[in-house]
């Protein structure tokens, strides 16, 4: 809900007084969001390698990236990852929320325990899974061996690396989808669900025609935050594969990091990020058009 509307003659002066309270916010956001954006945009028209050379090159960086195989691969990987991870997390998180919603005693403690991965940093998550998924010493492969499946390379196998990263993110972030949808389920009007049950609707029918439509606004909020977060993926890749093997897990942010800090090609990495920020912006705006923020503080 937004601020309750204030009627009467004081409205005007109140609106004026509110402005002062926003000055720190506008200053801080202006400094750390507008300035870097403008700077990146400006630099994307130059050729600068952190050295003396500083030439205006027009849109050469953009043209370069348009035909850059690696950048295209990174974009594709990023979206494959985002779609895979968000899809899996949505299905598992929703399923888990529905399941836990049925529980009586112990639901609270189960909910709390399920949230723990969200308190773990991406680097720690990467370390955990590097150990678990190791082809020779990892316990996952040991478990697979016990049930008669041969060793799987996981993060080291070009065909399995992306799936492994998606698996890791799913372990890490499904809890977010779960907790938000749990809260959403608890807020649903009980009478409607009971009425559907009395009318003889099966569990699946109730889910399809009552629960999911009522959850729609909150589902979109969850989807938006997970999608954006996944598009920005960095830590779990940096800590496991670093973009490899070959370029199979190279994401846009990993590539931008390598380009800026390993090759010191500052202007090219900034150009990448300008393009990518526009893509992310389009995704955010698309979600907003779906009415994400209605009834929230966002």
């Amino acid at each position: 809900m937004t601020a309750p509307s204030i009627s009467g003659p004081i409205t005007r002066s109140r609106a004026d007084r509110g402005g002062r309270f926003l000055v720190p916010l506008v200053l801080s956001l202006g400094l750390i969001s507008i300035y870097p954006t403008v700077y990146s945009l400006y630099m994307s028209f130059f050729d600068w390698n952190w050295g003396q050379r500083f030439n205006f090159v027009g849109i050469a960086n953009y043209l370069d990236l348009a035909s850059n195989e690696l950048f295209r691969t990174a974009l594709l990987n990023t979206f494959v990852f985002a779609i895979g991870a968000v899809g899996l997390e949505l299905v598992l998180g929703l399923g888990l929320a529905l399941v836990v919603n049925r529980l009586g005693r112990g639901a609270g403690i189960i909910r709390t325990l399920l949230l723990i991965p969200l308190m773990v940093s991406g680097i720690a998550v990467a370390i955990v899974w590097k150990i678990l998924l190791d082809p020779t010493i990892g316990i996952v492969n040991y478990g697979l061996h016990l049930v008669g499946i041969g060793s799987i390379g996981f993060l080291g196998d070009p065909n399995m690396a992306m799936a492994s990263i998606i698996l890791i993110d799913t372990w890490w972030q499904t809890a977010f989808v779960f907790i938000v949808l749990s809260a959403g389920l608890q807020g649903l009007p009980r009478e409607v669900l009971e009425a559907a049950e009395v009318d003889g609707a099966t569990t699946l029918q109730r889910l399809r025609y009552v629960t999911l439509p009522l959850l729609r606004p909150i589902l979109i909020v969850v989807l938006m935050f997970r999608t954006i977060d996944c598009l920005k993926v960095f830590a779990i890749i940096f800590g496991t594969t670093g973009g490899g093997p070959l370029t199979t897990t190279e994401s846009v942010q990993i590539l931008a990091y390598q380009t800026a800090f390993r090759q010191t090609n500052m202007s090219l990495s900034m150009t990448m990020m300008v393009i990518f920020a526009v893509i992310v912006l389009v995704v955010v705006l698309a979600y907003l058009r779906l009415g994400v923020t209605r009834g929230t503080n966002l």
Partner: protein
Amino acid sequence: MSGGTPSAWRLGRRQRRRIGTGVAYVIAIGAVLLTLFPLYWLFVISTKTPREAFETPPSLIYVPDFSRYFSIWSSAGFGHAFVNSIIVVIVGVLLALLIAAPAAYAMVRFRVRGGRWLRLWLLLAYTTPEFLFVIPMYVLYQQFGLYDTQIGLALIYQLFAVPFATWLLQSFFEEVPQDLGDAARVDGCSELETLLRIYLPLAAPGVAATAILVGINMWNEVTIALSLTFDQGRTVTIAVAGFRGYAAIRWQEMTAAAVTAVVPMIVFAAVAQRYLVKGLTFGAVK
């Protein structure tokens, strides 16, 4: 569902429901085990000897060795990084509250002109991919001596901390009865006094929860810390990865460091448990 007497039908439904609940418990407990096992394993590796840690089949019964939980502090700059993280989090959280509290207050109490655009700006700031601003800030920080400093990190963390804190504080401020604020104004309080004396104290648990959640996010941040620090300003998350060593990864130290970095966050989350849902949902769930 069709056929049978009404009482038989009711019994069938109740039984089915009981079975369903049983299945639900099995699934939920399975999910909890899958969730916790990787972290349990992290702890196990940190307390085994290098030989024990990776032998197959893994030994389930062993004598845990906690020595690395002591030795890591003087190794790979971990102790220094731990202190750095505490400084960054405290300064960063205070700054975030200082900026977000008045903003949230204004958004809840007044009809702010251009409020819609401000909200959009907050969302866009929050969703910006990190490297769009990290690379320019790297250049700027190099020039102003803020590179590799705690204060530099605390400053830039505002980009995600302020939107997050503003959303959360708004949802907590909304629970303060509007009448109380109005009464304070009638009694001669300025708007600032109303915020400080009515809203902040009444929403204190929410403010504390906001601080904790923002703090956890800063503590766990990787992308920005990795790019804008190197040695002196390095945070604990980055230091954990630093146990990679030159020749071989020092798994025992690395896992012990990871556990040491994670446990305080789980404790803090437990403290803020009641407000966790609101926090994790950005105050979006009412």
